[in-house]
């Protein structure tokens, strides 16, 4: 480790009271002499200045969500002349410790941010220092005008510039760049409890970062060694600091780095997990999730229980106190007395005023239900309770329960070990010369399903194109390049087609109307899709269409690209056209690819499997809701019975989750992780239904104990949004799938039914003479460990339920007529309940298939609701 050498020849600044930076052209005289520590830079007039140790450019303050308000500046580590207890050079060279010398050095070091605009001629020096080799402080001393020292962030209209003594810094909150947060950022928290505005590192504009990245790539050891993904500006700042002070990462909040933590800090922060004052403040102030503050990036699941309770308290309590239904005093009492409830919240509940309110109005119950859930989450109990379902069915099948418990545990630990696939690993899958895959597709998919793709190194850009079917898995690099070229051309051609339509107003009147309407729809939807993501937030360019309702507010490049892609899709798939929800499906793909032609074709691939969700007659959604109905009956009859009682077996409360694959329930980054897993079809091409089941199972106790009507169930499930932990949900879903698979196998073995191969189809209209004959045109599935045992069996005999009730094809159609499917439901219920009549409905059996449920073109034409081609 190198400590800065402060050659005595440097005429350091005296610790004069700070003055605002007002450099003049002749402020400095600088020597370019590289070698020898003797060269000096001298303030030409007064000799005053501070030493610029390190700096980095293109670090922005984002005062508003609009990109046009961003202020570029420099982050800098500055040394001023030490104060009274002037340190000798020996003292300052001792390694970081608690010696008086080190302490005084800390006092003399300033961490600063200065806007570009304020630098004047000093900017040359800043550039010079920035581009000097960053591994050690510059040998030469560069003096710059002292920035005004600030120890608190003065909110209000003033400047954002600050310079804070390192000794005053308590912690630094570090958020590396990732999708959704394009720019990495740091927030400096002072010991006094204040925070400076977030500093955003626009790495792609920053010369020194680009340089350092290149260097690291050449050396490449650093990237893997740090395990932190792509190098970015914030890393560099931490490196500077580490040369002078102890920088310790908090074990509780991995994004917080403590600066010279005292033992007490370490204790309360490291092991105790106490929320910081910022944490609490943010929660209490109800800052938006994206707000760059400590609490915002902490997943709910990792959050301290108290935090969680406070958060729900805010979300639900304050808002819902004014709501309705049938809350009882007893429930409130029970919760208020529950020892697990954090005292703060208990006190809140015991407040007489709150009590009256909750007594009068209901839906405090929903709030309490969620709350109860939060408590349940903490306890081990919950996992055990979940086991009864398997046990139940297994008793019926007289096999062992133990198996499943092991399965769960096994899954947990397996998943813990899975690491995301990095770009490096990904590239290793392919032959370096031909670019052909050298692993089996299944192996690759398994890795992605369990580990996901690294969010940081750009591997998604490439991998998504395989997962979405743009590239064939067995293609060579050359073939892929050729394909991409022709796809780019094709995209331009398709774009041209609607462009002409727009300009020429050609086509029939009906077509023109449709087109105009679609365009309007897309316009409106894009402007309300993921606007909280920085990529889509800005309104920095004037709207190209003065007639748009958004003409005044403006738009940004990415929203315009989104519109183009969706209009192109509307043209490309005219049988279906654009339907609401599609913009939600496109946004993440575009955010990853950031290239409209590429993202478009990825989206087309995604839509092939999602098409059925958007049909005019909603047959595809009905089918999935019906399947979920069957799945719930099969896996959790007790919960199902309750849902039946509260009139909720239409499973409509899962409509949103299924339509856009949980897009509204999870943060952007989680969605990418989830979708790439789902795209693999590793266990089932309908794995999303197991995710849905996993979410339902997690909340089963609350639903059964507290929710008394369809409206309450819907509200409760809608409000889960933003609070579901992805990782554990995926593990649970996998475990449910495996349980399901074993149950089906056990039943098959017992009843010795020949097993059909079914292909997922839409329900036929009742009048249709053809009933679904599963397997008739289904290709044999590729055998794999998960479904081989069933697939191996008799492939041609189509077994349709021999229980009472209509045949599945027509019963689903009947469901669409009534909006609720009683018939098929009963039929399966009897199947599960009554020993003799046990059947696996075709809807359930299809869940074992990995074949993606794509629609035939004629099916889309028939049900699509577009204008046709």
């Amino acid at each position: 480790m190198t400590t800065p050498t402060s050659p005595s020849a440097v005429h350091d600044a005296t610790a004069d009271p700070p003055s605002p930076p007002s450099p003049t052209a002749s402020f400095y005289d600088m020597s370019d002499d590289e070698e020898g520590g003797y060269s000096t830079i001298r303030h030409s007039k007064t000799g005053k200045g501070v030493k610029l140790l390190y700096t980095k450019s293109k670090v922005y303050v984002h005062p508003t969500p609009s990109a046009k308000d961003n202020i570029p500046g420099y982050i800098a580590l500055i040394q001023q002349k030490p104060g009274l207890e002037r340190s000798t050079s020996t003292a300052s060279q001792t390694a970081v410790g608690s010696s008086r010398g080190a302490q005084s050095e800390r006092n003399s070091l300033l961490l600063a941010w200065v806007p570009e605009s304020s630098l004047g001629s000093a900017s040359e020096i800043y550039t010079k220092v920035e581009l000097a080799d960053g591994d050690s402080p510059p040998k030469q001393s560069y003096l710059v005008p002292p920035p005004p020292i600030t120890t608190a962030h003065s909110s209000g209209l003033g400047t954002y510039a600050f310079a804070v003594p390192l000794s005053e810094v308590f912690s630094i909150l570090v958020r590396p760049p990732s999708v959704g947060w394009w720019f990495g950022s740091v927030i400096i928290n002072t010991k006094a409890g204040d925070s400076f505005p977030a500093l955003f590192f626009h790495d792609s504009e920053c010369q020194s970062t680009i340089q350092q990245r290149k260097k690291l790539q050449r050396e490449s050891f650093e990237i893997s060694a740090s395990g932190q993904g792509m190098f970015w500006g914030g890393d560099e700042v931490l490196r500077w600091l580490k040369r002078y002070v102890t920088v310790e990462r908090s074990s509780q909040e991995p994004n917080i780095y403590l600066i010279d933590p005292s033992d007490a800090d370490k204790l309360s922060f490291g092991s105790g997990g106490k929320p910081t004052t910022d944490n609490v403040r943010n929660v209490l102030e109800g800052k938006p999730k994206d707000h760059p503050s400590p609490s915002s990036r902490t997943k709910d699941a990792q959050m301290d229980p108290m935090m969680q309770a406070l958060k729900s308290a805010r979300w639900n309590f304050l808002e819902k106190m004014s709501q309705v239904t049938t809350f009882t005093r007893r429930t409130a009492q029970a919760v208020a007395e529950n020892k697990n409830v954090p005292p703060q919240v208990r006190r809140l509940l015991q407040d007489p005023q709150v009590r009256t309110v909750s007594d009068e109005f209901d839906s405090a119950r929903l709030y309490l239900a969620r709350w109860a859930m939060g408590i349940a989450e903490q306890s081990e109990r919950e996992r055990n309770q979940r086991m009864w379902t398997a046990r139940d069915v297994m008793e019926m099948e007289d096999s062992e329960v133990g198996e499943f418990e092991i399965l769960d545990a096994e899954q947990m630990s397996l998943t813990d070990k899975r690491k995301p696939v990095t770009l490096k690993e990904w590239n290793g899958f392919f032959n370096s010369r031909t670019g052909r895959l050298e692993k089996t597709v299944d192996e690759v998919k398994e890795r992605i399903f369990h580990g996901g793709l690294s969010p940081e190194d750009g591997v998604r850009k490439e991998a998504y194109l395989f997962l979405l079917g743009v590239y064939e898995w067995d293609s060579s690099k050359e073939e892929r390049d050729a394909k991409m070229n022709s796809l780019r051309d094709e995209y331009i051609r398709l774009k041209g087609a609607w462009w002409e339509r727009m300009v020429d107003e050609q086509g029939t009147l009906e077509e023109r109307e449709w087109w105009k309407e679609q365009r309007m729809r897309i316009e409106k939807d894009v402007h309300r899709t993921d606007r909280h993501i920085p990529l889509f937030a800005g309104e920095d360019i004037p709207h190209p269409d003065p007639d748009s309702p958004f003409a005044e507010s403006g738009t940004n490049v990415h929203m315009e690209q989104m519109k183009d892609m969706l209009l192109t899709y509307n043209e490309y798939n005219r049988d279906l056209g654009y339907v609401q929800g599609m913009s939600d499906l496109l946004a993440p793909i575009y955010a990853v690819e950031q290239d409209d032609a590429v993202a478009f074709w990825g989206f087309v691939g995604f839509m092939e499997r999602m098409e059925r969700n958007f049909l005019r007659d909603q047959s595809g959604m009905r089918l999935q809701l019906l399947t979920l109905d069957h799945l719930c009956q099969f896996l959790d009859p007790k919960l199902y019975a309750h849902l039946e009682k509260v009139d909720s077996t239409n499973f409509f409360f899962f409509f949103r989750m299924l339509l856009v694959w949980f897009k509204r329930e999870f943060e952007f980054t989680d969605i990418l992780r989830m979708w790439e897993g789902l795209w693999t079809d590793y266990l089932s091409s309908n794995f999303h239904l197991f995710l849905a089941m996993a979410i339902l199972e997690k909340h089963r106790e609350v639903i059964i104990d507290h929710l008394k009507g369809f409206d309450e169930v819907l509200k409760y499930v809608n409000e889960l949004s933003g609070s579901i932990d992805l990782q554990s949900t995926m593990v649970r879903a996998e475990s449910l799938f495996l349980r399901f698979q074993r149950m089906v196998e056990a039943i098959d073995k017992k009843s010795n039914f020949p097993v059909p191969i079914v292909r997922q189809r839409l329900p036929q209209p009742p009048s249709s003479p053809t009933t679904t004959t599963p397997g008739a045109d289904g290709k044999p599935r590729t055998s794999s460990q998960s479904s081989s045992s069933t697939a191996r069996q008799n492939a041609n005999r189509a077994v349709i339920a021999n229980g009472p009730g209509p045949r599945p094809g027509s019963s689903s159609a009947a469901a669409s007529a009534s909006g609720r499917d009683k018939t098929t439901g009963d039929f399966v219920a009897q199947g599960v309940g009554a020993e003799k009549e046990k059947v696996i409905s075709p809807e359930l059996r299809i869940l074992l298939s990995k074949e993606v449920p794509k629609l035939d073109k004629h099916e889309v034409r028939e049900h699509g609701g577009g204008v046709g081609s």
Partner: protein
Amino acid sequence: MSSRKKILLKVIILGDSGVGKTSLMNQYVNKKFSASYKATIGADFLTKEVLVDDRLVTMQLWDTAGQERFQSLGVAFYRGADCCVLVYDVNNSKSFDTLDSWRDEFLIQASPMDPESFPFVVLGNKVDVDESKRMISSKRAQAFCQSKGGIPYFETSAKEAVNVEQAFEVIARNALAQEESQDFNPDFPETIPINIGEENQGCSC
């Protein structure tokens, strides 16, 4: 359990996608407008307690997705509605033209006992937008409402909170009247499957 009888009024808000249904509801219930509400998917509701002539009622306002195809699953929420709010955008004639089919759709799906007297309210939203963009005049909208049996009409802005409070007051009042007319009608058995605990909804003692 409180001895006071609770009244739950179920209100359905319908209209083309993007006319401002979600924004209106949020303006009324939460007193705020955000330019970044997401397009509604599926259905959701907000509730609000209000006093109507000294009676405390709870309004349950149902928000649905506006694109036609998503309505086919909406049957479940239409049932038991006490009032239906039809919203259009005064700067978009298409959204006005479809009001009639939204109304028909509702009557078919909800099949209220007396369709003729079932309360609707029409809201012409986004009146804050520049006059030059306006496509549907007040006159035209009023004529439409008149022709449908005198539906109350309001011109609103969810963005600038214009007339929102007033409109929902009328909505609440009419919904309450509807709810009560059903309560006191002994000829028809109660069919509303709303869950208000064990309380007897028809009790008029």
